[in-house]
């Protein structure tokens, strides 16, 4: 099985729709909660899609707004206007 990539957010109201969108778009992703934060692990590759986040938020969303509530991540990043991808190349 591919190694996990991960992304973690502060567990607050602003990050909630982002977390929901990620879990919807990445069926293999698993959210682990600990006090104050949520860490999402996913084998091999994880994508954050702008459109899904906008649907959950009910407003326009710039993927770079993620920086405000992002805690950490593990994996190589590729980012454009529509998608933010974390992946291992192996």
């Amino acid at each position: 099985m591919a190694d996990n990539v991960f992304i973690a957010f502060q567990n607050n109201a602003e990050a909630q729709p982002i977390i929901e969108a990620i879990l919807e778009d990445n069926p293999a992703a698993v959210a682990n909660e600990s006090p104050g934060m949520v860490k999402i692990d996913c084998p091999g590759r994880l994508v954050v899609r702008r459109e899904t986040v906008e649907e959950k938020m009910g407003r326009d969303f710039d993927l770079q707004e993620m920086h405000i509530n992002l805690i950490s991540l593990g994996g190589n990043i590729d980012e454009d206007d529509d998608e933010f991808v974390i992946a291992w190349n192996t």
Partner: protein
Amino acid sequence: MAKAKRLGLKERYSLMTRGLDWETTYQPMDEVFPYDKYEGIKIIDWDKWEDPFRLTMESYWKYQSEKERKLYAILDAFQQNNGQLNISDARYMNAVKLWLQGITPLEYAAHRGFAHAGRAFRGAGARVACQMQSIDELRHAQTQLHAFSHYNKFFNGMHGFAHLRDRAWYLSIPKSFFEDAMSAGPFEFVTSISFAFEYVLTNLLFMPFVSGAAYNGDMATTTFGFSAQSDESRHMTLGLEVVKFMLEQHEDNVPIVQAWLDKWFWRGYRLLGLVGTMMDYMLPKKVMSWKEAWEIYWEENGIALFHDLSRYGIRLPKYHEVATKEKTRVTHELWATLYQYGNALGLHTWVPEDEELDWMSEKYGDLFDTMYRPRLLFLREQEQAGNRYFNNRLPMVCQVCQIPVFYTEPDDPQKQCVRIVEWADTKHHCCSDGCADIFNREPEKFVQSLIPPQQIYRGDAGGARDIFEYAEWLHLKKDIDTGEYNGSPDHQNWEAWQSQQPTPQANSDEAA
């Protein structure tokens, strides 16, 4: 409604950041950038540098100012509502003291280091990334000082972090780590701090520990901790980018980078032993043990990263298996060390309560029950009999990591691990094979380390003749700032506040 047509992020970013630098003509480039070649790293094409986040300066300021607004709104509310009363127990504050004394100065050192590295790189992409990180790190130092200044009004030992930083024996552990990095070349500096420390290891600090701060009711630390960590994702990706960039640019770079990864993995791991000890011993309410954090953030996430790098010919860092073997011991051995040298620490130490010992048994199993629990119970018995144990001398510390030479052999938890290294007819002590290797690779550098106990005994600590005079020179008051927690003014104040008695004056220090 159709959105106004605009450039995509990738084009926008490249227009805003590329082609803005130039080749110097009055002076040769090698004179203008004298430090980015001597480490032996070969760069063929600086334009191949990729910025994973594609954050322009404009967006950088926009998001950073939003983070600051949120942070300070919470800090204001925290102060107005006497947030210090919401922590789980006053013992918790000692983790905060260690953070203020040991970690906050590293943020400032990182600020300086990245300013220097940014100036040293001739590639504009790397320069901009270092500049942003330098500004972030200054922000981290400042927000931590602002957050902690409220606690300084109520708890002892927080009055003189800057004075302590250059004088306290145990703070030479974090200080020497950063000074080793800052006195290296720019590529090694970024590899050590952004990659080995921030990408591979600081998740262990900012994720489980800050989550622990949240669990222990410390809103101030949680807030600045996670706010700082949001910058950290950028620093981590800078670290990964610089490593991949070096590896892709020239095959001759591979062995150099590997040697740095070996060195800085071990140095970072040794430094993080302090954080592990904060997690296991200084959080009255426990979130995750050091062992569990090691398993998640190193054995799972860290190793995944090295698998990814294996396509460049990079292997796992040397002695990673030793670090994994030690995961059931490190924090217990280090706490015993801090406990006994408590008369020369700007924080309190104690024997954990029964419930906490049970938690440790559950997390650490047999080894804890056979080796560490009996020792802790013995120390508690001694303390209750009015015979609190202090080792009123100073320890021999490792020539490389500066941690007391108190850890045990990787395969024998009953045997002290000491390695003696020699160079130019002098002998030096190391705590481990990892540190001995680091010394042997750069002996000319490490023989120059100032080793605090030696300096103190030579009279270079204001002429102090014993540990008590030394503590005075640190501006630490005996049994107020130092020593046992039980019965300390912090402890008494806390009990009084909990039982709603009139608030005693907490801080006897004139210094603010």
